[in-house]
C-alpha cells in the first residue's frame, strides 16, 4: 500500500507534466521533445537559487519556472514557429526538437555537471507524517499538494474563464477558431507559456524525490508523453489518470523487479497502449500520424 501511495505522489507530478504537454500538443500538433529539458533547467535554476541565495523552496520553484518559460518562449519563436511557417512536417519538427534537447542537456551538464543534485524543501531532515498507517514525507506532501493545486487552478481557468474556453476551442478545432476571427497565434503563445510553466513546476517537484540530472530532461518528457498518450492526447483528465497510472506502475515495477527496470516498465506501458488503445483512455483526438 505504501508503494501505491508513493506511486500516486510521484504520479501526480508526472500527471502535471503530462497535462502541460497535452495542452501544448493539442494546440500545436507536434511533439516538442525539448519540453522536459526546459523544465529541468527550471528545476536547476530553483536549485541554484536555493543553494546560493538561500531562497525558500516555493519562491525558488516559481522563479525557476519563470526562467523556463522564457527559454520555452524563445525556443518557440526562434525555432518552432519558423519551422511551422516553412511547412515542416510534425516529424521534422520532432527531430529538430531532439536537437534542441541535446543542446540544452549538454549546456546543463556544462553548467551544473553530471552529478545528481538533491533538492529538498528544507535543510533539516523532517520526520514523516503518519496517515492511516502509511508514511508520507514532507517532500511528498509538497509534491502532492502543489500538483493538486496547480491542476485545480488549471481546470478552473480552462472551464470557467473566457480565455480558457478559447484555449479549449483551439485544441478542439483550430481551423474554426481562425474562421471566427480569434487571434490564434497569441493564444497559442499563451498555451506555450502555461504548459512550460507547469512543466517546470512539475520538474522541480519531482526533483524532491529523484534529484536533478541533465539526463532527466529526456526521461521526464518521455514520462509526460506516456502519461498524455495513456490518457488520450488533448484530454487533461486523461493525462491526470495517465500520470497516476504511470507512477503506480513504475513503483510496483521497482518493488517487484528492481529499480533498474523502471524505464522498461514505463516504455512497455506506452507500447501496450499505443498498440491496444492508441486513442488513450479518454479518447479525444487520434494521435496525428505523419504517414
Amino acid at each position, binding site marked *: 500500500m505504501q508503494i501505491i501511495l508513493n506511486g500516486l505522489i510521484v504520479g501526480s507530478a508526472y500527471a502535471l507534466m503530462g497535462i502541460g504537454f497535452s495542452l501544448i500538443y493539442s494546440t500545436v500538433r507536434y511533439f516538442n521533445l525539448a519540453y522536459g529539458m526546459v523544465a529541468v533547467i527550471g528545476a536547476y535554476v530553483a536549485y541554484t537559487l536555493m543553494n546560493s541565495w538561500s531562497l525558500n523552496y516555493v519562491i525558488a520553484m516559481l522563479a525557476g519556472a519563470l526562467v523556463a518559460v522564457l527559454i520555452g518562449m524563445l525556443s518557440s519563436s526562434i525555432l518552432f514557429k519558423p519551422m511551422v511557417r516553412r511547412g515542416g512536417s510534425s516529424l521534422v519538427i520532432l527531430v529538430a526538437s531532439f536537437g534542441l534537447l541535446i543542446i540544452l542537456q549538454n549546456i546543463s551538464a556544462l553548467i551544473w555537471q553530471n552529478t545528481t543534485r538533491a533538492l529538498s524543501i528544507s535543510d533539516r531532515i523532517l520526520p514523516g507524517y503518519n496517515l492511516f498507517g502509511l508514511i508520507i514525507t514532507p517532500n511528498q506532501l509538497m509534491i502532492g499538494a502543489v500538483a493538486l493545486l496547480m491542476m485545480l487552478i488549471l481546470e478552473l481557468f480552462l472551464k470557467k474563464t473566457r480565455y480558457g*474556453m478559447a484555449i479549449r*476551442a483551439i485544441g478542439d478545432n483550430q481551423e474554426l477558431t481562425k*474562421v*471566427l*476571427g*480569434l487571434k490564434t497565434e497569441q493564444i497559442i503563445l499563451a498555451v506555450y507559456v502555461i504548459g512550460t510553466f507547469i512543466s517546470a513546476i512539475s520538474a522541480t517537484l519531482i526533483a524532491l524525490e529523484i534529484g536533478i540530472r541533465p539526463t532527466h530532461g529526456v526521461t521526464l518528457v518521455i514520462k509526460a508523453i506516456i502519461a498524455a498518450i495513456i490518457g488520450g492526447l488533448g484530454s487533461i483528465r486523461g493525462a491526470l489518470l495517465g500520470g497516476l497510472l504511470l507512477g503506480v506502475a513504475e513503483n510496483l515495477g521497482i518493488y517487484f523487479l528492481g529499480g533498474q527496470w523502471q524505464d522498461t516498465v514505463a516504455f512497455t506501458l506506452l507500447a501496450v497502449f499505443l498498440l491496444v488503445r492508441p486513442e488513450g483512455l479518454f479518447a479525444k483526438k487520434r494521435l496525428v500520424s505523419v504517414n
Partner: protein
Amino acid sequence: MNLLEAQQLSVSYGQNKVVHEVNFHVKDGEIVILMGPNGAGKSTVLRALFGLVPHTHGEVELNGKRLHPRPHKMVEGGVSFVPQGNTIFSNMSIEENLLMGAFHEEEQLKVEERLEEVFQFFPMLARKRQQSAFAMSGGERQILALARALMTSPRLLMLDEPSIGLAPKIVQEVFDKIKEINQVFGTAVVVVEHNLKTLLQIAHRGYILVAGKIMLEGPVEKLRDSDVLEKAFFGELG
C-alpha cells in the same frame, strides 16, 4: 450600395489560376447562390472573399469601404462564415459552441442576451444547451453551426456547401432555417452549393461558375430558365 462586393477577383494556387476576374456582389437582405460543377472554384471565391485564402488580383469592398479581407476584419464588419464540413467544436457543449461564436464581443451582458435570442430561434438547441456537441448528427451540427454564425448578429452569412453529406430531408430543414433567418433577421446570405433544387426555391439571385469564370448571373428565374445551368453541370462549358 452593395453589402459586399468584389471586382475582378482572381485567385491562384502557385502557378495555377483557379478564379478568373470574378465580379460579385450581394445586397442587404439578399440570398445569393454560387453554383457550378465540381472544381469550378466556388468555395475558393467564398474563402477569398472572407480572407481565408489570399487573392492575387482584384478588389473587395465591405459596406462600401475597400479592404483586404481577413477573417477577424470580416467578423468585425458583420460577416459570419460557416466553412465546409468540420464546423463545430465537438468537445464543447452546445452553449459553449455558441459562446465561441460571439467571442470577439467583449461585453458579456450583450453576449448573454444574444445567446438567449439565438436559443429562442433554435428551440431544439435550447433543449440540450449544456450537452456536449460530440454526439450530434450531421444535420444537427449544421444547425448548430448556423446558430453559432448568428451569434454576432451578422448582416451577411457565408455558407460553404451547407448540405454536404446530409440526407435530403435534413437538407430541406437546413434550407428552411436559412430562409427563416433571412426573413426574420434580414440577414443577407451567400451560399455555395451543389444541391440546386431546394436552393433555387429560397434564393433571390445566383451566379453560375465554371472553371473559375462566371458563365451567367442574375435573378433565380433567369438562371432556372436558361440552359447554361444544365450545360455547366454536364461539362459542356468551360
